[in-house]
């Protein structure tokens, strides 16, 4: 077992951090719930970070590290799917940004307003849709990702990627979900730790109260658990590990986000406090791919089928 990043991984993350430091990333202004990081997206597209998973010397682990790091940003950008699911397909056939859907190509999907490709899990086939932005209507959402819906499918270029593409697609979707959740949790936790150290009530910092310390300690365990399960899933790229990581993340999100908001009081419920940059997105991921009960069912089926 090796929990240390190797030299290549450290270099990749260092390069990513340097690239991000060179960008003027403006978090949402007061009253805004969503800012799509167009400049980040553009840099990512040209810098090759999202294609690391296609390189022979690298794996999904490097892709997941990148997805986790990008999720920590205060702005939203389509990176997890491109970094982790994208390498399953030739880049010229399935162009990024990617939007993902389940059941039907006409349901609301994250990042569809930006997407050039929509991948749809139809249950018995994986459908690829080349997205025409004129066919996308934005869907109002409180959850800080840009959501959109195709107005109709007729006339759009679609093709079947085959039943065999479904299992890897679902596996990587779950991996992306877990890695993104881990990054969001990290930034949200950092924000709250800063708050409880500096906000005083009853003459002392909030963070000195044991009731708060205990639950933040539990949240820290949750955050680390999510991270390490996501990394394990990325390392093995196995169906069951990915399902377990997604189950853990989706199960953990409600209590984790609730506790973080709770310790910021009413201020934490407003758009004037930065916590929502990350927790809105966590809340959206909570329901993705059918939610935690669907992940748990998948984890059970994928882990013990042959037992």
């Amino acid at each position: 077992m090796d929990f240390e990043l190797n030299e290549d991984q450290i270099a990749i993350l260092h390069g990513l951090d340097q690239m991000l430091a060179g960008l003027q990333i403006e978090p949402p202004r007061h009253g805004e719930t969503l800012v799509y990081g167009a400049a980040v997206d553009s840099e990512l597209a040209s810098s090759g970070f999202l294609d690391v998973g296609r390189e022979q010397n690298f794996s999904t682990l490097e892709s997941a590290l990148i997805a986790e790091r990008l999720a920590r940003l205060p702005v939203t950008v389509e990176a997890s799917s491109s970094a982790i699911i994208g390498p399953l397909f030739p880049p010229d056939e399935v162009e990024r940004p990617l939007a993902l859907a389940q059941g039907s190509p006409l349901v609301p999907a994250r990042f569809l307003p930006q997407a050039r490709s929509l991948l749809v899990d139809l249950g018995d086939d994986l459908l690829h849709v080349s997205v025409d932005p004129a066919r996308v209507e934005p869907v109002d959402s409180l959850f800080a990702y840009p959501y959109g819906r195709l107005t109709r499918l007729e006339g759009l270029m679609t093709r079947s990627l085959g039943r065999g593409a479904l299992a890897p697609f679902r596996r990587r979707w779950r991996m992306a979900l877990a890695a993104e959740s881990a990054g969001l949790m990290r930034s949200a936790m950092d924000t709250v730790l800063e708050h409880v150290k500096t906000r005083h009530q009853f003459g002392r910092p909030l963070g000195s109260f044991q009731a708060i310390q205990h639950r933040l300690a539990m949240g820290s365990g949750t955050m680390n658990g999510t991270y390490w399960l996501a990394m394990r899933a990325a390392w093995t790229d196995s169906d069951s590990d990915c399902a377990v990581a997604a189950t853990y993340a989706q199960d953990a999100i409600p209590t984790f986000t609730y506790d973080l908001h709770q310790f910021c009081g009413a201020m934490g419920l407003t758009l004037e406090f930065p916590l929502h940059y990350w927790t809105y997105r966590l809340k959206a991921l909570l329901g993705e791919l059918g939610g935690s009960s669907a992940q748990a069912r998948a984890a059970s089926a994928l882990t013990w089928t042959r037992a």
Partner: protein
Amino acid sequence: MREVNGDRWLDLFRIEARDWLRANKPNHIAPLEGPESRHYVLDWQRRQYEGGWAGLTWPREYGGRSLSVAEQIVWFEEYARAGAPSTHNASFVGLNHAGPTLIACGTDEQKAFHLPKILSGEAIWCQGFSEPGSGSDLASLRTKGRIEGDELIVDGQKIWSSYADIADFQELLVRTDPDSKRHAGISWVICPMNLPGITVRPIRTMAGPSKFCEVFYDHVRLPLKDAVVGGLNNGWKTAMATLGFERGTASLALQIKLIEQVDVLARDCGDAMLAPRIADLRADAAALKAMSYSFALAAAASGTPGPEGSLIRLFFAELSRRVSEAAVDLYGIGSSELAGDHGWAYDYLEAYSETIAGGTAEIQRNIIGERVLGLPRGKA
């Protein structure tokens, strides 16, 4: 409970309530903020008042009907089943804790002036308790009330004053004795929101609307005689009565609505994995119902709710969150059930405030530990 379910009069009352709601419930969606919200809330309150359905337990001389809590519960049950507008709106403070505080602690003149206005949909109230530096530690409040002749001059700042931008009056806590510390030297005053020197700044919440507000007071002059409720420098005691109502009986209608919502989830649940979770929620909802009803009956008998209200407040707040989380799982994040101003997504985000408003869940736990269970008081 026997009284609620078994009494022939209550059965007839229930039928009457159901028929009236069917004929009078608004058909258009309630706006969540701004002047439209004010008009909507006042219109609906006026309609209930004219129909004889406002202030069921309030004294008859102030526009109520002097009925028992049993009738109130029946009304709320039918109200929830009819899908009538949420009671968690701009009329909430007036009806559920400012009004009851005036009944318990106000002068005859204050009651005669304000209570009929609240019931008949003429006035909206907001709360001015919390300050930027005084949240859970409410007794550290610093907004000043200086007596000058027969006036009280208010300077300072309040925050989290829901609907202050559309309110007519505010239940306001000010420090009237600057030499006193903490709980002493505070007064509970009625502040008309149209006075010179008041500035209101709405704050947008993550659930969408800008119902939270910050309120600034710059030499606001209140007539001393009309303003003070429960005695000058005795405001902490009056505030505890207000918080007793807020934590105890104010959410009864919302609790009953939540119980109805759990039944909706149970009806819609076709997911075998989710079914045990929904069953757990139903069990919790049944427990909440029993606790709420018994507490409401006991509070009515004693006049003011006791600290046990914190048990129900905490149980309700945490159940609200779990119910809306289950709804998100059940329907899926992109579903129509979650969309819109009154969908489950709104409820889910709004539920976060339930364990903060009226005293955080941590404060409620302290109250339960110290005042209900009789445990030793910890160091602040």
